[in-house]
């Protein structure tokens, strides 16, 4: 039965869904590219404060960046476990990844809260508009990833063909790593270059 269990036959041998997620990520490059470019174009153009150098807390953001980066490691371990059909390890690393994603979101919530109290709202200046919308859309991607990983975690308690499960998790993993990559860019270009460059 090629339909229920194994990965379907395709002309190239590439699974349909894996090809689709890669195309989606290629398209997302343009999406985040435009958001980051908007931030950079308006950098230093705000007429009133607060300004990035007043607010950015590099040590704090370094911690959250580090957590997201390491969640990618956990994710890849989950994928490897699923490919080895090791259900226990799969569950463990899926849960760790999702929790690290949640922790990152917690940091982001703390940061937003702190910034708002320091007077940076969406409407106060260009920095506020560009910063919240760019990081907000990244955060939304992380949140969707957490929901996705949690569903996959719940799904491990159902009987599913292991090859199919491995593909499910691999695809979610590709998305997760991409979200991590975007943060690597934002952390470097927006945070570090913003205060140091």
């Amino acid at each position, binding site marked *: 039965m090629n339909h229920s269990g194994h*990965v379907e036959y*395709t002309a*190239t*041998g*590439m*699974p349909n869904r*894996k*090809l689709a997620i*890669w*195309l989606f*990520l*290629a*398209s*997302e*490059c*343009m999406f*985040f*590219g*435009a958001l*980051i*470019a908007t931030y*950079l*174009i308006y*950098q*230093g153009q705000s007429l009133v404060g607060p300004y990035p150098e007043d607010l950015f807390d*590099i*040590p704090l953001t*370094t911690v959250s*960046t*580090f957590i997201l*980066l*390491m969640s*990618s*490691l956990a*994710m*890849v*371990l989950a994928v*490897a476990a699923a*490919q080895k059909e090791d259900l226990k390890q799969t569950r463990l690393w899926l849960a760790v990844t999702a929790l690290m994603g949640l922790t990152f979101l917690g940091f982001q919530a703390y940061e937003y809260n702190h910034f708002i109290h320091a007077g940076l709202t969406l409407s106060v200046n260009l920095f506020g508009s560009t910063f919240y919308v760019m990081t907000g859309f990244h955060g939304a991607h992380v949140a969707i990833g957490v929901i996705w990983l949690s569903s996959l975690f719940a799904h491990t308690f159902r009987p599913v063909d292991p090859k199919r499960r*491995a*593909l499910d998790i*691999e695809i979610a*993993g*590709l998305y997760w*790593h*991409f979200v*991590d*990559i975007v943060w*690597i*860019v934002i*952390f*470097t*270009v927006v945070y*570090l*270059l913003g*205060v*140091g*460059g």
Partner: protein
Amino acid sequence: MAQHKASESPHVSTSTYLKVGLVLAVLTALEVAVVYVESLKGIVAFLLLLIGILKFALVAMYFMHLKFDTPVYSRFFMVGLVLALACMLAVMAIMHSDRAATLLLSS
């Protein structure tokens, strides 16, 4: 036979993943340290971008398996990445952003 290769997910050893994870952690530490070193002020943008690109490449090649998978995925992803970079850098340059000049010069 090429068809067979594409459908199989590449198997990479756990120790490779751990090593890459370690390198990523070290690079992040290095990145932050660079910002605080006074004597590097002149080339800090260059160093940050270099490390950023390195991190990006490591995640894409090892964690996302682009190094081991069929090159088709890499090609599609690179088209998106290069188009996005080209278009957005052009917009920044056209709109006379100071940032664009820095980015262009240092990369």
